[in-house]
């Protein structure tokens, strides 16, 4: 073994200066490396989160410092039918949209997991709804849901002759609620499908081969291999999906702004309406804070409800 170390090209030809040597002191280097990320997150995330909780207990309005009023905001919300309406719709919206996204997304992932020509092109196309800014695709949906010129109404009335009148998608509460959920599912399918596709590809083909030899049917292979093996990924993707669907803002703000007659307010849009547009920062913050228990519950439920089956993945696969 040769003892001489030749100076490798490019590295360490110059003697390091004192600054460089200071950066060789590991604790200093660690602090310097972590400062930008942790600094940004502390100032613009942790501090506002605390401030938000504090604001929820004050009567702050825009341009005026508030004083501590205890639980008054929350007591008021408890008696506010609009807040209850928003809670109801947020839960409903999250439940139906998450179910739709996962059912259809899982199906799409299983389809994409087959071999066929132009596979990668197809995957790229499928991701589009997720890539394009939500508000911009929401505008397209707004136009698709137009009371007079909706293309869906045109298809049903003039092409298929199933109906005789146009559908007023956004004009009545339940129509608007389901229209928004449909748009949310449309937007969420690609992400669920691609994430689950990644999961499907980690399942070893030998498991299926063994099952085939044992005479398992396609449904049995899905039920006893695919589904359990996908549990950990399903848990993670579903946790994310629930959090971001429950706190959704853009779709509702772009398409209905909470109407008609406040039937489609999510907690986030209600918080915006009261807090920023209405100037009642304290009350808006209280509405935003009221989302936290739901989020914690949903996270625990989806994560631990699904991930407890992690052992089925086998060891050394963590």
């Amino acid at each position, binding site marked *: 073994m040769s003892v001489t170390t030749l100076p490798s090209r490019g590295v360490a030809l110059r003697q390091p200066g004192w600054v460089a040597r200071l950066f060789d002191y590991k604790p200093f280097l660690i602090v310097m490396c972590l400062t930008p990320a942790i600094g940004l*997150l502390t100032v613009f995330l942790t501090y506002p989160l605390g401030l938000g909780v504090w604001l929820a207990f004050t009567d702050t309005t825009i341009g005026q410092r508030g004083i501590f009023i205890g639980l008054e905001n929350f007591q008021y919300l408890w008696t506010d039918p609009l807040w209850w309406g928003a809670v109801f719709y947020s839960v409903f919206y999250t439940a139906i949209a998450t179910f739709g996204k996962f059912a259809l997304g899982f199906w799409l992932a299983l389809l994409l997991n087959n071999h066929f020509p132009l596979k990668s092109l197809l995957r790229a196309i499928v991701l589009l709804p997720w890539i394009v800014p939500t508000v911009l695709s929401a505008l397209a949906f707004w136009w698709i849901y137009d009371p007079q010129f909706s293309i869906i109404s045109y298809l049903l009335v003039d092409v298929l002759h199933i109906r005789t009148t146009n559908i007023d998608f956004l004009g009545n509460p339940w129509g608007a609620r389901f229209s928004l959920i449909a748009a949310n599912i449309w937007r969420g399918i690609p992400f669920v499908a691609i994430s689950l596709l990644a999961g499907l590809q980690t399942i070893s083909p030998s498991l299926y081969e063994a099952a085939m030899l044992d005479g398992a049917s396609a449904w049995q292979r899905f039920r006893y291999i695919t589904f359990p093996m996908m549990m950990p990924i399903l848990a993670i993707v579903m946790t994310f999906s629930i959090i971001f669907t429950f706190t959704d803002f853009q779709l509702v703000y772009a398409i209905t702004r909470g109407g008609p007659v406040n039937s489609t307010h999510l907690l986030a849009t209600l918080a*915006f309406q009261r807090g920023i547009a209405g100037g009642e920062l304290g009350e808006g913050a209280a509405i935003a804070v009221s989302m936290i228990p739901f989020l914690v519950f949903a996270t625990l439920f989806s994560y631990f409800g699904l991930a407890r089956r992690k052992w089925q993945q086998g060891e050394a696969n963590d």
Partner: protein
Amino acid sequence: MAWDSRARRVMMIYLPLSCFVLILLFPFYWMAITSFKPNAELLNYKEHNPFWISSPTLAHIKHLLFNTAYPTWLKTTMFVAIGSTFLSLFASTLAAYAIERLRFRGSPYVGLGIYLAYLVPPSILFIPLATVIVQFGLFDSPMALILVYPTFLVPFCTWLLIGYFKSIPYELEECALVDGATRLQILRRITLPLAVPGLISAGIFSFTLSWNEFIYALAFIQSGANKTVPVAILTELVTGDVYQWGALMAGSLLGSLPVALFYSLFVDYYVSSLTGAVKE
């Protein structure tokens, strides 16, 4: 039997797959076709087939580019997206390097802490953040967005880059250390160049998310010129009771194009990093 299995394949795979593609792409088709339709065709389904354009026009796009502040909005959005992407990449590269390569007591907890930040949704933060932005004198300034967007970009990028750094063999760094390179030289000349694919996918991710962001831009920006495309279209172009559907759809189409183009250039990185990230 061969034919039978092919028919089965068509029914079970190609047919549902085509339905999915059709439904997932239809809103974009509808957006595009509306952008080029003259108003007469746009509002008359009886005499014109709504799925096609008989006399395409550039009037909506012209109106958008010359009669509205659309070019300014595009510029602002681009500035904000690029600024926050670079800031996030800088912060998360260093953080990921420290967590994964410099290994110290508690580094997994720091990583977990940064990652948990991703689970705090903007809908909870925008009201208190608005007051913080006002305190800093940044209200109505694109700088506010550049500084705030990293709160949701840094957690994900850090997570992604930790995965990339993990895949680079330690031996390379150790050799350089033996040769007398400083830590900074190692980072700049060995680790970073090897992590370029990871940096690119983190960059694409950050760019698309910043371009997409809505609630902060809506809450922190007031003057028309500083608005980003998604906010400006909704607050400045939607006026009165008669909607200019042609111009609105043209605005949506043009606003989607930069992201779609940017993403299609790097789609392989994107999909592989996404699948890679899920595998972790």
